[in-house]
């Protein structure tokens, strides 16, 4: 159907049904419907169905698709009636700020709907979760998390294909093409999507950093600096070790999506071949995408073309919505992955992204982007030795690091300014399980669904997003304790299982102090 160079080719199907004890749920197991609509296209009477650009499940009747999207549009307009003037202004601001989408939710006896509006309110994305199914799957419904999941779905599409409106801008009849793209993307994205049984994780949406010593970090930074000095054409860069982030030089707005794609989709697919050939050429770096043969100078076409991603330009404040196409090079060596982004010049970003996706028969190679085999070859030469050196140092340190004994509690740590997040309840993509072996596994049982729900509701009710400090202790009748601490905007959630040491509030306070001291002192001063 599509060229193999499409990034989505790598949306791997590694995932089977997660076992019931898992801390994730397949989104599709609780999903009732998902849609993308363009209300403007359905304005004419009798042509209302044209506003539906994508609808899941595919088999749904046209009439019902039209009804559901029409309902969403009506909800958006109806609620508009109750915005006071001051609120109207803030909602305008929200639209400018790309990441805070204007949203609506609807709750019925059987379902929970969330709608977001994107790109100057031209498009509505909607999702509905079945209350019954989420009950069966032990998935606590937390509306802000569903909102984040929906926004992430939009951002991921935008990263690979550019903004929705770019499809409508060029030729008026581009809608079929747009629909095809949406279908292509979401038909793979939705079935593979997994969500956390602790919805707060999806809501916060951070990335996991690798903890490392200062000198080692300096090594990484100097490697990257040298790399950029040597190849000034590289504009943005991301450095991972296993599935953890070490360093990044790109907009924070793109980081979560990109990180997620790399750790959940791209890297796991490369793991299998690596394990097979372990031993042979183990320290030899290679590109995960693009050509395998770097010795020739043939143009990069078809299978060998690099994928293009749309990222925010560096000057966030000035060009709010400016998305620029970048060619992505992913180089991997000894568990270390360097992602390099080169501006895709020449054509309008979307055009070129298209050309690299569909194995086009362009006549002039330069139009396929600026990355050539020569450049790849040169970077390979540079990284081959340097990266191997740094990677093995990191490997030594990570290997040496004695993980504290398995914890007797669950935790979520999140720092909004760096987006750093770590949690005992997050999914470890198969990568880390295989690569790092132990990890900081927790020996306590997963919290019951009631407790997870209580964590979310306590957060949304009593931990103000604007306040930088706060503290919250909650006890449930099943004797689980929840501790939420916010210091300097950094958030720590502890979930303590029933135990004789934590019977009173005072006990829990001292236990909390101990935990912070032993596990979070470096990142959490209090």
């Amino acid at each position, binding site marked *: 159907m599509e060229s193999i160079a499409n990034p989505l080719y790598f949306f791997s199907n590694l995932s089977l049904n997660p076992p019931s004890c898992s801390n994730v749920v397949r989104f599709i197991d609780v999903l009732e419907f998902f849609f993308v609509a363009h209300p403007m296209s359905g304005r004419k009477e009798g042509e209302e169905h044209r506003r539906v650009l994508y609808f899941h499940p595919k088999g749904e009747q046209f009439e019902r698709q039209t*009804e559901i999207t029409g*309902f969403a549009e*009506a*909800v958006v307009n*109806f*609620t*508009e*009636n*109750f*915005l*006071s*003037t*001051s*609120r109207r202004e*803030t*909602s305008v601001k*929200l639209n400018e700020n790309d990441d805070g989408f*204007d*949203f*609506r*939710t*609807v*709750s*019925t*006896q*059987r*379902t929970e709907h969330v709608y977001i509006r994107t790109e100057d309110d031209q498009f509505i994305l909607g999702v509905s979760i079945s209350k019954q199914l989420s009950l069966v799957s032990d998935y606590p419904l937390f*509306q802000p998390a569903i909102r984040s999941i929906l926004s992430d779905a939009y951002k991921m599409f935008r990263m690979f294909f550019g903004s929705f409106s770019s499809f409508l801008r060029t030729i008026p009849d581009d809608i079929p093409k747009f629909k095809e793209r949406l279908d292509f993307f979401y038909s793979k994205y939705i079935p593979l999507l997994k969500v956390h049984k602790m919805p707060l994780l999806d809501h916060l949406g951070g990335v996991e950093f690798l903890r490392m010593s200062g000198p080692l970090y300096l090594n990484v930074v100097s490697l990257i600096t040298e790399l950029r000095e040597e190849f000034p054409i590289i504009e943005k860069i991301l450095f991972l070790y296993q599935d953890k982030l070490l360093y990044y030089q790109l907009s924070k707005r793109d980081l979560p999506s990109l990180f997620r794609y790399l750790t959940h989709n791209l890297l796991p697919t490369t793991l299998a071949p690596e394990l097979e050939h372990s031993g042979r050429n183990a320290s030899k770096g290679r590109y995960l995408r693009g050509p395998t043969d770097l010795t020739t100078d043939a143009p990069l076409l078809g299978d060998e073309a690099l994928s293009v991603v749309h990222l925010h330009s560096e000057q966030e404040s000035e060009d709010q919505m400016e998305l620029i196409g970048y060619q992505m090079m992913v180089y991997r060596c000894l568990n270390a992955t360097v992602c390099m982004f080169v501006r895709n010049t020449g054509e309008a970003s979307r055009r070129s992204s298209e050309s690299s996706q569909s194995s086009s028969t362009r006549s002039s190679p330069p139009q396929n982007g600026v990355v050539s085999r020569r450049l790849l070859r040169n970077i390979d030469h540079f990284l081959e030795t340097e990266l191997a050196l740094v990677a093995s140092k990191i490997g030594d340190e990570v290997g040496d690091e004695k993980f504290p004994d398995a914890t007797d509690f669950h935790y979520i740590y999140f720092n909004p300014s760096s987006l750093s997040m770590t949690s005992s309840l997050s999914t470890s993509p198969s990568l880390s399980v295989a690569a790092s072996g132990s990890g900081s596994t927790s020996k306590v049982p997963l919290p019951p669904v*009631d407790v997870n*729900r*209580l964590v979310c*509701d*306590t957060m949304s*009710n*009593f931990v*103000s997003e604007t*306040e930088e*400090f*706060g*503290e*919250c*202790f*909650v*006890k*449930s*009748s*099943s004797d689980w304790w929840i501790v939420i601490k916010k210091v300097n905007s950094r958030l720590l959630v502890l979930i303590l299982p029933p135990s004789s040491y934590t019977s*009173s*509030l*005072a006990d829990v*306070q001292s236990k909390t102090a101990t935990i912070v001291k032993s596990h979070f002192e470096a990142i959490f001063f209090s």
Partner: protein
Amino acid sequence: MDVEVPGGSEAVGGGTDTGSESSFKVSQVEIEDVEENLKNAEAIFEHLEQLPFQVFILSEFGKPIFVNNDRNEGEVVSLAALICAFVSRCQSWGDSLMTMTSQDNHIQFLHKSPLIFCVVSKYPEQLDQQLEVLFEQICSILSKSQLESVYKKKGDNYDLRKLLRGTDRLIDSSISSWRASPINLVDSSISAIPMNPSDREFLSTTMATSLGAAKLDGALFGIMIAKRQIAAIVRFKKYIIHPRDLNILINLVSDTTLQTDSQNWVPICLPRFNDTGFFYAYISYPWCNKEQDVPACLVLLSVKRDHFDGLKEVRQQIVSKLENNSKFFVNFSQAVKAPNLYQISQIGSNSESLWSFLYLNHSSRQVCMSASKIPLITRPERWTARCEMRRSSSLSTQHPHLRTLFVRGTKHCLFVWVTDLFSLYCIFGPFVTATIAFQIVEKLLKSLKSHEQRYFIINTTSF
């Protein structure tokens, strides 16, 4: 172990607590003053912006019945049509619409055939309960059976406003009482006027014996109400009255148009008691507008339409017996005029860091709220405190397994304790430690227990 108090000067204030308390005596009942400050158009506009609850009541055929905001007729009609369309669309999906939210508005829907209720609010907590209360409020005027049959008889386009004429202010005051309620549960609970146990005893016995002696078959309840609180309640044999129904009565008697020294005979349906029939309420304010000006209201409920004269007689007896006991009457007038609410300083040492509390007894459904004290004095301050309590009560309703909650904020701390017997919501100063908070709460519970008969109605006397 001393409690940390914010700043030195504050500590001095804590020492002279009782002094400042009396100079800042604030009634916690403030339905009357909601409408204040509407001096000019700008203020009215501002007031509307801040209206915490915009309510729409319509028939399921889309005809508006009641709105509490000043949108123009056309706008109301089109909004009502939309509300109706949303509700019926969901119904056609075999589902029912509950809520919608946007950035910071929460819209709750309730479909109780033949009516649709909708409220728009900035506060999401328990709007569903509030709409139920409104439904019952309307039932109390028409009764549920009459409500159900009226559209069948008069057709889908019937304008129910004809039947509800003049009762808008009851719905209005019910809505404003939401604002005053620190927790929504207040609608499902009552609070008692603090009184000397012996005085309350005398009041109940007097009411019960007078009603009993009259031997009116069908007179079931006698209630003394003041400042939206209950002073005494007596009942015939084992009949009981639900707090929700009591609140409908309270709402009715708080209507200022009734408050004259004349007597009123009002048919009223108490839906929790029986939603198909009517009570007849003999309502009088025996000491209103006289030189005493005691704002107490005596309500006698009978199921018989022809009991007016009989109950009038009973009222005379009760009033004269009460007035004849001059010691009682002085105390009673005092208790009703300026209710002697629970003062936190009663707990004793360390109580300065406790700012406000609300106690709900689960079995009797009675609440006790502390008198306002520094620093929760001004309207916004008290409103903030109420919101915290409202939010935590809503959290504990959503999560029945919640037992303890301690929230340390930058401005205050919140402590919630829920057991099978009671729920307790406390606002503490920001520097209190959990340990200290817990100690104070234990003292508070002891104190409430020992003054139980003063702040709660323990036994309902029957006749």
